[in-house]
């Protein structure tokens, strides 16, 4: 192994990247604007839910309830009749339909505890659960105010002190920003290395390299360090300037530790990029392959939704993917301030997966050059 060759070829890759405006724009976009937009696009718990009200009571109380639904949580309610209700819900026009029965106000005052019906379109998961909670609170508040002073409250004798750690106000931007940095690292490490190799293949320069005193391992390592280095730098910039600076999202743990872990991740992902490029051969094929590989890696790694809620078999399978360990490691370090004593198993796993992927890719790459 001649490290000077690895260095010189890597510098050549960097020069090539400098002359590729599309890739440069992609890198800059992925680590700045994209992080800002995706984390701000993360939906609040409930926004602009559609609700209809069937008011069979037509009392002062029922109209107070109807006027208690407003933006940003709910769109102004549609006042409809019982017949319309089913049709509108079938067509997906309403997520909620609240049915206030006749004589509701009178029965409330009489202490009869009348029933009020809430229909929820439970195929709209995102709104169904939280929305019914909100509606319960809103209706309760209106009713309580209406009957204020008439009944004594029963005290809850046991309190519950709930404290969210690491993100006390549960701000979705914190989570979104750091998650999208992780997503960008995964995507770019694959795309940059794969594209660099395919570009050489298409120009016929890989073959040319091999008649020079350069080995396949050197060619591969040069792509790995240069493209991995670009992604590492970009992510460090993104975390300090964009995430901590512009978006004021705090980072709990040590940035150098995270970057050290990212290096292992980049080693594994760039090796995978080389492997996929040898399978695809041409850019369009590579782009197609990318969609079949990248999406499962991103979605099933536990970055977006917790691993615990995935089926056992998927959890086990995904242990073979570098992303899973990377996500665990990053969440521990960046969100929860974990140190190396906590995250060493992930470092170890990334190192092993990276080495295996590198050896696979190297074998495949040698064959690819023949």
């Amino acid at each position: 192994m001649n490290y000077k060759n690895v260095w010189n070829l890597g510098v050549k890759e960097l020069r090539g990247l400098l002359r590729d405006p599309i890739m440069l724009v992609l890198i800059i976009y992925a680590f700045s604007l994209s992080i800002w937009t995706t984390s701000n696009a993360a939906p609040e718990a409930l926004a602009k839910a559609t609700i209809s009200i069937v008011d069979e009571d037509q009392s002062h109380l029922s109209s107070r309830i109807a006027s208690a639904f407003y933006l940003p949580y709910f769109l102004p309610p549609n006042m409809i009749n019982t017949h319309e209700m089913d049709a509108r819900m079938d067509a997906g026009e309403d997520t909620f339909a609240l049915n206030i029965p006749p004589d509701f106000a009178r029965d409330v005052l009489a202490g009869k505890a009348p029933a009020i019906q809430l229909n929820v379109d439970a195929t709209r998961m995102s709104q169904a659960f939280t929305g019914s909670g909100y509606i319960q609170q809103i209706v309760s508040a209106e009713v309580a105010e209406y009957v204020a002073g008439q009944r004594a409250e029963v005290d809850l004798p046991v309190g519950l002190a709930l404290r969210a750690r690491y993100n006390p106000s549960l701000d979705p931007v914190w989570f979104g920003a750091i998650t999208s940095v992780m997503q960008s690292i995964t995507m770019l490490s694959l795309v940059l290395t794969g594209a660099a190799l395919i570009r050489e293949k298409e120009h016929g320069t890989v073959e040319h390299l091999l008649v020079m005193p350069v080995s396949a391992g050197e060619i591969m390592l040069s792509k790995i360090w240069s493209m991995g280095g670009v992604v590492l730098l970009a992510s460090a910039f993104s975390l300090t300037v964009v995430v901590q600076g512009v978006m004021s999202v705090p980072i709990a743990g040590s940035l150098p530790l995270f970057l050290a872990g990212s290096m292992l991740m980049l080693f594994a992902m760039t090796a995978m990029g080389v492997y996929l490029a040898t399978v695809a051969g041409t850019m369009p094929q590579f782009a197609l392959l990318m969609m079949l590989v990248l999406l499962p890696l991103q979605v099933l790694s536990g970055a977006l939704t917790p691993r615990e809620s995935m089926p056992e078999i998927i959890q086990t399978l995904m242990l073979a993917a570098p992303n899973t360990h990377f996500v665990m490691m990053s969440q521990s370090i960046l969100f929860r301030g974990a140190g190396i004593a906590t995250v060493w198993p992930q470092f170890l796993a990334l190192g092993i997966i990276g080495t295996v992927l590198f050896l696979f890719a190297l074998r495949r790459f040698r064959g690819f050059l023949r």
Partner: protein
Amino acid sequence: MTGDRAPVATVRKLTLRYGDITALDDVTLDIPAGRMVGLIGPDGVGKSSLLSLLAGARVIQDGDVHVLGGDMRDAGHRRQAGPRIAYMPQGLGKNLYPTLSVQENLDFFGSLFGHDKAERARRSDDLLGATGMLPFRDRPAAKLSGGMKQKLGLCCALIHDPDFLILDEPTTGVDPLARRQFWDLIARISAERPQMSVITATAYMEEAADFDWLVAMNAGRVLAADTPGALLAQTRAKTLDDAFIALLPEEDRGEDATLVIPPYQGGNDEIAIEAEGLTRRFGDFTAVDNVSFRIRRGEIFGFLGSNGCGKTVTMKMLTGLLEPSEGHAKLFGHEVDASNIAVRRRVGFMSQSFSLYSELTVLQNLELHARLFSMEEAAIPARVQAMIDRFGLGDVTHSLPDDLPLGIRQRLSLAVAMIHGPEILILDEPTSGVDPVARNGFWRSLAELSRNDGVTIFVSTHFMNEAEWCDRISLMHAGHVMVTGTAKEIAASKGHDTLEAAFIEYLEEAIGEDEATPAPEAAAQALPEAVADAAPGAPSGFSLRRLLSYSQLEALQLRRDPIRLAMALIGSLLLMIVIGFGINMDVEDLSFAALDRDQTTASRDYIENIAGSRYFIEKPPLTGYDDLDAQMRAGRISLAIEIPPGFASDIARGRDVAVGAWYDGAAPQRANTVQGYVQGMHADWIQRHMREAFGAAALAGDFQLITRYRYNPDVVSIIAIVPAVIPILLLVIPAMLTTLSVARERELGSIINFYVTPVTRVEFLIGKQLPYIAIGMLNFFLMFVMARILFGVPFSGSLTAFTLAALVYVTATTALGFLVSVFIASQVAALFATALLTLIPAVSYSGLIDPVASLAGFGRVIGTIYPTTWFITVARGAFSKSFGLAEMIQPMLAMGLAVPVILVTAMLFLKKQAR
């Protein structure tokens, strides 16, 4: 032949520009009918542009082109004349479909011209017989040799008996025998069909000499147009090469028209390169068979042969790029060993494709190569400067290679190959595509290196005149070396004057031994039959056969491309699993641990209450706050419950007491859910406790809210997500596949068949669409089955109606892909554009998460017209809301309306000509 017939084509003041580059500059020309017209000139002078304009494949910018008596600007005339013109574009097999077999290619072209099955079989048998291709009819076009590809291209061009045959460099890179056979074939066909006119571009001056009429072109202009004899007489030159150079403006002629290389001085018997019994097999195929030769130091040794005869493979074995299957290769007496990097330092290599880094400047290219050869850092600048001076690159040191003319790029390649001062130079077809003047200059450099510096040069070529400049040559064919010697010796060995004639004789001998070629008489007999048929009638407005032939073509190509096929067949299933399980809003089996400082029945009951729910799994109890911190930091627990000391006794005495709950807020969505669960379970526990203490009346409220979760009573996210995933995947994947199907044709060049054959836009698009609709429907059923079985989503509606709606939807989504591809030429850009243009509206504006009714402004408009909105309603309705046909009619109409709108827009923007 009669010279006074009306010209087959007239060109007046024709100018064509690509951006800043002028390809054709005010060209005026009459092309005589019924003759063999040759277009000569180096690469990049506008020959191909002129031919594509004549064929009607390109839009005329400025000037007039009349072909077969009509204006080629007029689409009506093009439609009429199209079937009478045959156009074979430049590049080996450019208009062929590489994964299709010979027969399938011919069938496709035949059916484009309206031939039925029997007619196609008869014509293709005749043409394949006449060209000697019958034994190869089942071989994929990609696996044919260069000569055979060109013959197949010709067969495809001739299948409809054209009156005007336009051939763009049909014989470049083809061996001389195949070349002669090719021209014989054309001559026989012309003899049978005297009304047929032929125009052909060529880089070989020796073949141009046999044409009836020549047009010499340079820099977008016509230099001269006359018979070959008249051109020679006019320039007083002996050969057409020289005549052409004489016709050039003075400043373009180069130093000296004729190149003389001093003869090789013998006396040096050191062997630089030695091959002994070299053999290389790829599977069953033997690319190089028992090749032996010795090259002395300082000699220029040439390999002459057609494309694919084994020249490149032999060179690769000599450089250690390929391991020989048998035999030895030695450089300076040392066995070539792929891992022996020291030997590589003594060798310089220059391959066909001018291996330069287009993203590095001339200087950077030279420096990089110097470093890779581990030259002393201090010595590099001087050496680089020496190379720049020697090869005349002083003016362009900071330019990028792509901005340089081919001739200079070639000199740069040579400089790069020479940077480390190698003793052996291996050059694989270094001059393909370079004009005669630059070629002369290049060989002058080679001669200097050999004679002055003693560099051994091993070069391959398919040009006869270059072979004659070598000290010795080997003639190669099909992996064999047929003969080795000086050009004169070889010519004399067969009693010919020229190398070419001798080569052809050697080829004929070799082919007679191993390849079945029909006797010329058989070919001659078969041919008249093939061409005697009357041309089919003028193309009708719409032809189902042409449409279906594009469908079949698309299906065949898809079947033979593993990655696209995988995307088409398992892509949606894979992604459905990923999304179905991955985007899961149920939060279950979260791990929690308790810090129980009370250790009473009451505290254990409280913890049991949480551990017993389906949402939480209990981990071993915590030992203290440090343990709590450590566990939570490592992500091993997402909730910790602390029960304070004296919990039970405080409750009993009615004193205020609070349970502590810490939860991981890092992922806010999950944290929200956890918070909700904990509050709910806490309230639940208190209620139970109070009921035990005070009786049922204790907790009566003002009213009861009865919540009915409709359509999905258990509120399981799979039931909500999976039916909505089907519309998304049926949008993205089919749209990407159809986008690729058009973008691929553009990028690979086979779109030319759409430009020059009678296929209409409707036939082209709908023909391509049909297989993808079929695949979309297959995917629909597979996803449906998976939703029912793997995900266990109950289905309550009408499957028939749902299927019908899916058909309408898939028709719309496949059409959408065409609409994107019409605007974007490159495959990669088209893919990304499709992904963006389909995913964003589908995910954000189609009611997947927020109902369209909650959207405002632009998003609302998109959501209302986008077909996905309607199909998500249908899918959710069919699965969960017992939709039948009646409920689906309205969404189906809305989606159905999108189909013609999208298709017609795509057709309006899809041009029948290149720009």
